[in-house]
């Protein structure tokens, strides 16, 4: 059996993994209605399986590739039309022909991926032999082209989402005495939420500091993610040379045009921690969702400043606190807060769960994000958790997973 090039099959598998539920169902329903056929499907041809990612009259899921008609369709450039599958020796033996639903007629148009190779086919099936007219063939080709466009958009979005995820810090910061973890769960493939951490030298020459940031650019999706990437990069740049308040003020000056031209604003919370003393400098630009929590209670680290881009400039001056070595710094995005009815009473009621002893920062972050996602957060959801791990506290080694970030 001659199979299409394996890069196409890899591409098909990648698309199949990421197909949002019901994404292509409309086009498939349209095909089914136009042709009055009992079955219509979009099938992607992977290495060993055909993935039915959208269908009417036939279950979604995987079929061994040799038991499919579409694996032949993807090997040709033109439409494959088989009047009666029972009378075609290539297909007479396959289970959908010999058994339920006993299909007889097949017409499928190959669908290209971004690479230009065929990744699958849009097909219609009938339980009686039939033949398509010229106009019907053109119609099927048009619907195939429509799906191709959709697939291309999805592939682009998936790639954008990957780029954004890869820009998140993945490795533990190179600084002793601190544990940190973060996670973003975008509502779409990419989004306006992000977190960051990196090591900076204290501008006063007092040693290394861990800087953490969590930002939320208004809106969702790819457009918001472009602005988020810019704010993140500019903040990184300025942070190397100055304190956090000044870094935010300079970040606003640098990004102002782009924020205003796009009518977007970004909330931003930035903290800079001295792991040795626990001294924590921070600035809250309209974010409002950072707390320090411990068994003794919690306090908010918030200021009265506006988000970047909401108005003219603001003062954005550094405030200070101290993170005791039994305390957690927790910063989340409003996707989490919305699930808590935008209420700090609800936050307080949930604190026990994240303060349960023996959890790593990674586990706490997962707990927060999973909680929000499970409770049907409609927005991007982000959490960042940090704590000091004094080097003489060796028992922390069991739980203190290395800093991490995931999708």
């Amino acid at each position, binding site marked *: 059996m001659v199979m299409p090039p394996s890069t196409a099959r890899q591409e098909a598998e990648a698309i199949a993994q990421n197909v949002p539920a019901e994404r292509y169902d409309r086009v498939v329903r349209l095909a089914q209605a136009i042709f009055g056929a009992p079955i219509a499907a979009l099938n992607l041809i992977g290495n060993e399986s055909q993935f039915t990612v959208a269908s009417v009259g036939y279950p979604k899921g995987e079929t061994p590739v040799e038991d499919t008609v579409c694996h032949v369709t993807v090997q040709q450039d033109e439409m494959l039309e088989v009047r009666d599958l029972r009378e075609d020796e290539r297909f007479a033996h396959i289970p959908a022909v010999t058994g339920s639903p006993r299909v007889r007629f097949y017409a499928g148009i190959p669908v290209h991926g971004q690479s230009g190779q065929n990744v699958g086919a849009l097909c219609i099936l009938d339980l009686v032999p039939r033949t398509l007219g010229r106009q019907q063939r053109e119609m099927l080709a048009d619907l195939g082209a429509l799906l191709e466009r959709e697939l291309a958009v999805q592939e682009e979005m998936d790639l954008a989402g990957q780029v954004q995820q890869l820009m998140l810090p993945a490795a533990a910061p190179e600084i002793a005495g601190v544990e940190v973890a973060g996670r973003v769960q975008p509502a779409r493939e990419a989004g*306006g939420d992000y977190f960051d951490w990196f090591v900076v030298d204290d501008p006063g020459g007092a040693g290394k500091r861990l800087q953490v940031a969590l930002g*939320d650019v*208004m*809106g*969702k999706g790819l457009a918001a993610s472009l602005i988020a990437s810019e704010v993140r990069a500019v903040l990184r740049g300025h942070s190397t040379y100055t304190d956090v308040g000044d870094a935010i003020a300079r970040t606003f000056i640098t990004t102002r045009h782009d924020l205003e031209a796009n*009518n*977007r*604003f970004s*909330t931003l919370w930035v903290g800079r921690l001295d792991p040795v003393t626990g001294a924590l400098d921070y600035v809250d630009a*309209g*974010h*409002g*969702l950072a707390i320090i929590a411990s068994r003794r209670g919690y306090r908010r680290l918030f*200021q*009265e*400043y*506006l*988000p970047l881009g*909401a*108005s003219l400039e603001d003062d954005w001056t550094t405030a200070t606190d101290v993170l005791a070595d039994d305390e957690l710094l927790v910063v989340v995005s*409003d996707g989490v*807060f*919305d699930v808590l*009815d*935008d*209420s700090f009473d609800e936050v307080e009621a949930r604190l026990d769960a994240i303060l349960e002893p023996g959890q790593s920062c990674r586990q706490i972050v997962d707990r927060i994000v999973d909680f929000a996602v499970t409770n049907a957060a*409609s*927005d991007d959801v982000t959490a960042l958790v940090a704590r000091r791990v004094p080097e003489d506290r060796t028992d922390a080694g069991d739980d203190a997973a290395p800093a991490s970030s995931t999708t």
Partner: protein
Amino acid sequence: MSFEEVDQGGYVVLAPEGKFNLVAAPPVKARIDDLVAQGKANIVVDLHAIDFIDSSGLGALIGGLKAARQQGGDLRIAAAGPQVKAVLKLTNLDRILAPYETVEEARHDW
């Protein structure tokens, strides 16, 4: 989402309903921009029928506020519910977009 619009002469009241989010915000923002372009830059957004606002909704209000002020007008919000007030307070945007209890209070000097 459709929304009520009442031109009171000296000001215009817009009253969106339901969730003021990524879906609902752009048409409201577009309408504000239209009004401002027509010289009707005094606008009250009556939020009594809004039960939820997200950052896109806030963005539309802030964008509208900026547009109105650039033309010498203002955009004010009235009758915001608890969730809207909480979000405005959280983001400190109540500093530039003070919530009025009623449309009457919001338009007091127009």
